[in-house]
């Protein structure tokens, strides 16, 4: 191979390496994120599970099933975290289940917030900005 050809080959390899240079760093972030998601899902499922058992014990095995045949727009007891916490303070078992459900709904928001911090700490300004924009929309939906 001529010197020029060799130089071109080296440039091509360097360009290809540069194209994928971000991959190892992204994999490290993904591995930490995977652990976080497992913990978050586990916590939410534990709250839901305990809530469901509590509901069954408190209501008894013969308690009639709730009907969901018609949407009732007037019920207000499960519509926010504050209402759920008030229900929990009043010792209502279904409020613990709802707390688990809310934890589950909030998990994607926590995931985006975590990625925002991870990207900002690596000075990835574009992706930090993208995560911030997504976070604003998610928080708006939750608020």
């Amino acid at each position, binding site marked *: 191979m001529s010197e020029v050809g060799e130089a071109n080959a080296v440039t091509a390899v360097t360009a290809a390496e540069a*194209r*994928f240079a*971000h*991959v190892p760093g*992204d*994999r490290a972030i*993904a*591995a930490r994120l*995977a652990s976080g*998601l497992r913990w978050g*899902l586990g916590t*939410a*499922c534990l709250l*839901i599970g305990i*809530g*469901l058992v509590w*509901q*069954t014990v408190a*209501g008894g*095995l*013969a*308690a*009639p*099933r*709730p*009907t*969901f*045949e*018609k*949407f*009732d*727009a007037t*019920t*207000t007891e*499960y*519509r*926010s975290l504050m209402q759920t916490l008030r229900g929990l303070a009043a010792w209502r078992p*279904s*409020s613990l*289940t*709802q707390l*688990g*459900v809310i934890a*589950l*709904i*909030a*998990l*994607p928001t926590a*995931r985006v917030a975590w*990625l925002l911090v991870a*990207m900002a700490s690596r000075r990835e300004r574009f*992706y930090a900005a*993208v995560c911030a*924009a*997504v976070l604003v*929309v*998610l928080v708006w*939906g*939750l*608020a």
Partner: protein
Amino acid sequence: MSEAVFMMVLLIAACGAGTLGALTGLGGGVVIVPLLVLAFGVDLRYAVGASLVAVIATSCGSAPSFLRSGAANLRMGMLLESTTVIGAVLGAIIAAWISTTAITYIFVAALMYSAIATLQTPRPNPLDVPPDPMATRLQLDSIMPGSAGAAPLPYATRRVSAAMLVMALAGVLSALVGIGGGILKVLAMDRLMRMPFKASTATSNFMLMVTAGASAGIYLHRGQIDPRLAGPVALGAAGGSILGAMLVARFSVRPLRIIFAIVVVASGLEMLRRTIWGGA
């Protein structure tokens, strides 16, 4: 049926839906809504709310293995989420203004499309795709990890803007009918962006929780997420997705996809029949 039996049956049924969804790679949303409406007589608005929570649970349950294996493209997921969340919020707002009959028609159309897409065999994408300048600038090209002795597979992506638009549509659909919109996401990444199929499904799975999360908060405030329904459904779907991810290597996926498509089409036709002619 007592409340305890109702919750137990719901939990088992959602577990089955989550397992089937994970085995076929399509999530449980397209099964859970018809299951709740047809088998348990649940109002569509409650069913959509519970299904969105189940989609978050299944996505959180299966995403960790995709993230650890390196199949999910993190940057692609972050970028495409920016339009899918906007679509999801729009969809949740639209859902408050249109009738449940209209939502049923949209849902049935989504079911039919899911059934067709399920039966299509993924074609291998060419590896010599010229890099898209936008994808290169945003560092969207990545490497699929090698498996079973195969070498790692570097891949380039393209048509980023078009895929972002499809993602917005997936967000609207997800929020309207309570499914993850995974079919459209895979379509955008596999067919438009020419990503490897496994990378498309893994990245789609990683994104589903955010798409569903964007509209689930709005449904919660509307009172469409009741813990006595969403709790057992989410718990069952999460367990099912983990079970499905463990079983996926032991099953031949093709026959399962055919069964899945038949179930989905039959459910869609029954929902259509009840909407047009009424009755149980």
